[in-house]
């Protein structure tokens, strides 16, 4: 790996006073205000109606999936579920900027990105329904959802290293929450990516909360983007509810990484409108008064207003889309509900590639009639 320049050595030159040796700046960007009005010239891709419509559709589909998953969970037909309500622009804007051959390592609130990248809603239902087949994606090479917070971030560095060693023009993308930034895993992975200039983009899906711990109690860092500074890497903030801003920042970061320019960190500022998961009751720790204003920031409404203002979206489009998304999700849910659990012996089949003798004997015992009857 090419060593990074040892700037602190040259810096010693400034002698007489305590002299500045390094300076950093974190910038924040957004394109659309909350009513969908452009605040500045839009990025090129936004000239294309189809592009914007695709972003919009993907956000609506993600939300439809979310709503159905919540409904299934509330009626006892799905396991604990982590909703991404209000955060759709982060996942979708990012996924839209990625190439198919890139590789996504999601946390657990990125179904918007997973769906864009070829994971089926059926597979997602299976996963959240407690079935390992939900991560055996039939049309995606991405990593599965990662539950232990931040532990997939070093994987992204490893995946990026694999791309780099193979001279492939691919980028690994890890997404993680504001809470995750406090884990050493993130600092270690960022540091490695920085010093080895790995083709990886780190995206902090900052929804303001880590379960009951607000962003301000997570770290004294003024921005989460500046976590990058410790790794000698560029970091920036974007409005995570502005899908254009997310897409544009992601595209720039991916392009830089792809061209050998090294890693990049994007802090996407969004807000968790719902409970942490279906097992959580946010009213215990978060006043409704804090939540309400954030509804006005809804990324889906914002882009819809923008499309409508440009006369690119009519009532019929909306109705068609809603119906289509509902149909897709309903079909997937139906298939999920009709899918019987795997046979118990599959437990044994994937622990090792080849079943060790010891385990083969256990499988025999497990399948023996007496044992098979749950107590």
């Amino acid at each position, binding site marked *: 790996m090419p060593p990074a320049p040892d700037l602190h050595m040259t810096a010693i030159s400034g002698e007489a006073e305590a002299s500045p040796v390094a300076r950093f700046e974190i910038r924040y960007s957004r394109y659309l205000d909350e009513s969908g009005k452009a605040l500045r010239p839009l990025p090129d891709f936004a000239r294309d109606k189809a592009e914007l419509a695709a972003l919009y559709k993907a956000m609506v589909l993600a939300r439809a999936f979310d709503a159905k998953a919540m409904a299934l969970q509330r009626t006892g037909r799905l396991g604990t579920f982590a909703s991404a309500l209000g955060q759709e622009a982060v996942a979708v804007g990012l996924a839209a900027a990625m190439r198919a051959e890139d590789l996504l390592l999601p946390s657990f609130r990125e179904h918007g990105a997973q769906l864009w990248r070829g994971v089926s809603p059926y597979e997602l239902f299976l996963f959240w329904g*407690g079935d390992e087949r939900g991560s055996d994606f039939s049309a995606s090479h991405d990593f599965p959802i990662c539950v*232990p917070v931040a532990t997939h971030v070093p994987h992204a560095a490893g995946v990026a290293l694999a791309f780099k060693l193979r001279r492939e023009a691919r980028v690994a993308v890890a997404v993680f929450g504001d809470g995750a930034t406090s884990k050493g895993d993130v600092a270690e992975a960022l540091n490695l990516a920085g010093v080895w200039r790995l083709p990886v983009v780190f995206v902090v899906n900052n929804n303001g909360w880590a379960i*009951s711990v607000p962003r301000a*109690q997570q*770290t004294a860092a003024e921005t989460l983007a500046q976590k990058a500074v410790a790794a000698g890497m560029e970091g920036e903030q974007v409005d995570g509810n502005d899908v254009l801003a997310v897409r544009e920042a992601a595209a720039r970061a991916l392009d830089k990484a792809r061209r050998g320019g090294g890693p990049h960190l994007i802090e996407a500022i969004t807000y968790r409108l719902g409970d942490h998961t279906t097992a959580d009751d946010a009213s*215990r720790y978060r006043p409704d008064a804090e939540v309400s204003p954030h509804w006005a920031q809804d990324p889906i409404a914002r882009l819809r207003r923008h499309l409508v203002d440009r006369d690119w979206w009519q009532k019929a489009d909306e109705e068609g889309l809603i119906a289509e998304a509902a149909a897709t999700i309903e079909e997937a849910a139906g298939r999920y509900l009709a899918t019987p659990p795997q046979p118990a012996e599959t437990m044994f089949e994937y*622990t090792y590639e080849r079943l060790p003798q010891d*385990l083969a004997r256990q499988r025999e015992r497990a399948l023996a009639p007496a044992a098979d009857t*749950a*107590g």
Partner: protein
Amino acid sequence: MPEINLVQAVNLALARAMAEDASVILLGEDIGVDGGVFRATEGLFERFGPERVLDTPLAENMIAGVSVGLASQGFRPVAEIQFTGFIHPTIDQLANHASRLRTRTRGRLACPMVVRAPAGGGIRAIEHHSESVESFFTNIPGLRVVIPASPARAYGLLLSAIRDPDPVVFLEPTRLYRAFREEVEDDGAGLPLDRCFLLREGGDVTLVSWGGPLKETLAAAERLASEGVGAEVIDVATLKPLDGDTILASVAKTGRCVIVHEAPLTGGFGGEIAARLAEEGLTSLLAPVARVAGWDTVMPYARLEQHYLPSEARILAAVRQALSYQ
């Protein structure tokens, strides 16, 4: 005397310990205003304030390391790890520091701290939330490893763990949190941290277990009783240091032993108990020592976990085999 469940007993013991000793402080993720994801610390933030109940940033290694620093200065930190699937980053601090601070300084510094975590499966949780992790800790000298299996034992053992001058890993079986209630007197009485508990007497077979599967073990004993078979049931409770004597004495009487645990079989702590029997109780054994445990497979997701956990049927099958052994 009110009937309370296991998680309420944990809460009661924490409150008691904090009330009686100002050096007891709690730290962890979401244990403050939220009261813990299982509500084990409910009401404590309100009662004892933000300097006794500390919501930390999200970093388990840090939680363990900060606890070591606190304990070295005379505090008695009780750290909560939200699920055992996230307890691995604490091992470094527990193995390299907490368990050694006393011996490394020949007693100059000590490390009275507790790491609590909800443990085990059976609640249909998402992946990485159902692990039985005791064997990461039972081979670390200087630690105590305690797993309560009833509200009363949770109360007494946790009080003793907090008062203990050395570090304790305290694993609370999630699926027993609200499984049943019993009367627990809030009298501040601790239970010994070096003793097994005899839950049920019987002369025909000894069932040794701890944590979650004690539920199925007791059910099996009940069923056996209805068939005229006397099963003695031992709750190991404190795995480290192990009270081998109680187990040996029971097997000396029954001659047959079935060990039940939820962690994977190979390398699980059941091996230690069977080894003690093979070492110090061989002449008592009238039948092979059986272990009914989690399989040596990764804990399956919710849809299959019932096939993984030791069931009453599997326990009964093992007992019947032991009884029929000549």
